[in-house]
């Protein structure tokens, strides 16, 4: 039997992991909900942002907070570029071609990163103390990242609900024909959405680089998981994705302690597959 204290620690770590996963899933889900295209390469854009922050800190000696802000800018720029160069020409293609085009982007990003920066693992070392609460050890770095992730999500929520552009973006995701009739330009809203989604990737990148080492195939570790969270929560459903991220993170974290790391992921994926059969619209979908 596993010591309950380890189990409790796994739960706490799961919550912290959930914050990061939720951030990744929200960015992807925003783009999916509005533009109706799954960016297979979304987490690879996060990887690029991580590299950006890493080089700004280690090569140019920028302070971490400034490099993190720059990372958000890099993310927004990448989002706009992906939208203009890849998504715009295939907006009316069959969904599978859209999926494959961003899949090609995934190959491209991974190999360009290998080409330019080799497969070395790189990380920004942040020396922050480890907290001990009642026998549980919590990394302060991860706690900080969790707090900032929650903050970023609140900011996204406020943007979508309290601003004019945000309201228009939500309107597009509800009915893309009607919004054009209302005088808004969907093309411009798509671009703004891509920029915001990209900026979220930048935030995620800045928060991930202080916890994990980045390498060209970093996206492979989080990519599939991020899609599954989006689908579980219901594609385009922000609240659903948020909740699903924490559920999956708990399964992975606790499963990892109880069985093994790989089996934690296997259990999470199997739960995903089974839920897809039982509740194809996501766990929070209302029954039609």
């Amino acid at each position, binding site marked *: 039997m596993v010591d309950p204290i380890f189990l409790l620690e796994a739960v706490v770590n799961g919550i912290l992991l959930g914050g990061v996963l939720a951030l990744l899933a929200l960015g992807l889900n925003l783009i999916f909900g509005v533009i109706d295209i799954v960016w297979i390469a979304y987490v690879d854009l996060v990887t690029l942002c991580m590299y950006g922050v890493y080089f700004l800190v280690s090569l140019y000696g920028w302070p971490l907070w400034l490099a993190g802000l720059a990372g958000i800018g890099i993310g927004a720029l990448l989002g706009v570029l992906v939208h203009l160069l890849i998504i715009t020409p295939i907006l009316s293609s069959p969904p599978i071609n859209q999926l494959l085009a961003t899949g090609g982007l995934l190959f491209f990003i991974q190999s360009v990163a290998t080409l330019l920066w080799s497969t070395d693992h790189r990380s920004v070392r942040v020396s922050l103390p480890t907290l001990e609460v009642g026998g549980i050890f919590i990394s302060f770095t991860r706690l900080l990242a969790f707090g900032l992730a929650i903050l970023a999500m609140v900011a996204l929520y406020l943007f979508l609900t309290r601003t004019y552009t945000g309201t228009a973006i939500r309107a597009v995701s509800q009915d893309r024909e009607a919004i054009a009739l209302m005088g808004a330009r969907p093309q411009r809203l798509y671009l703004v959405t891509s920029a915001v989604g990209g900026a979220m990737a930048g935030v995620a990148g800045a928060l991930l680089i202080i916890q994990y080492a980045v390498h060209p195939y970093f996206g492979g570790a989080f990519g*599939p998981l991020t899609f599954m969270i989006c689908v579980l929560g219901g594609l385009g459903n922000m609240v659903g994705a948020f909740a699903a991220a924490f559920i999956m993170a708990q399964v992975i974290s606790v499963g990892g302690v109880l069985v093994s790391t790989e089996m934690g992921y296997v259990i999470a994926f199997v739960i995903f597959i089974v839920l897809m059969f039982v509740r194809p619209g996501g766990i929070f979908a209302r029954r039609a």
Partner: protein
Amino acid sequence: MSGARLLGLAGVVALALVPLLPLGPAQEYIWHVIIQIFLWSFVGSAWSLMGRFGLVSLGHGAFLGVGAYATVLLWNFYGMTPWAGAGLAILITVAFALVVAYPCSRFQVVGHYFGLVTLAVGEVIRLLIVAERDWTGGSLGVTLTTGGTASDWWTLQFADKRVFYYVGLAAWLFGLWVWWRVDRSMARSAMEAIGEDETAAASVGIRVARFKMAITALSAALTALGGVLLALYLAYANPDTLAGIGVSLRIVFAVVLGGMYALLGPFVGTALTIALSEYLRIYFGIKLIGIAETIYGLLLIVFIIFLPAGIYGSIAQAARRRLARPSGRLPLRA
């Protein structure tokens, strides 16, 4: 039509004669590249059996991996000859495919969702192979235990690459034959109707679930056979080269690049991607690691934007249009 057949026959004869040509010191390498093209094209054809009907699986690496690992492990641990091992491996894969396909078709998991479910299935298999490292060798992979002799029909291990050359050629032709049979069958029309609209297809009396399960079983069986042959040829299986998302996506991309609706599409796509990566690998050597993949990724994006029917698919379409014009008849197929 007989002209095309003659051309095809000449092509097959030419390919069959390649191992007899004096190719100098590079011959082993050239055979190796062609064997890989044969085997991966075969897997691509198997994938396109589902892909062309809208069942775009992103998890065929799972079928490949189950086939390869079952054969290798049955030989390594139980001394079962790959003849029986391959049969058993294919049976296991088909059973596994049906376990996934049944609920997918029962609960109408289609489109994006089908892709994501199969993606998860592929990851589950890869992670299980890594997790069961005590007997699968984990992420280090597993080597086929040698049978002792240089050439042996019992263990299906051959030091001479030419044996595998002909095995690969035969497998590839078999894959094309299956594709052609499906293309000519009534099932094709039914599957196309299902791919367009399941509910409408069901309403005209097409047994949607039965057709989807059948085509999935066929595709999985052939993919598993491809995995078996690849594992026997390389005498090695690795979760990253024969299972998982990377492999699944590679299969899909090669087929899409060539053209998923054409007989030779998977072959053209596979041959191009393998030839390109081998050429770039030799040209750049160890200088610019990743450049081959970079160009490959760029080509994929460009092709999907500008040539969605694939290279061979687009050429075949254009040729058919030109042939159809003088006869004055309407082309039968779009």
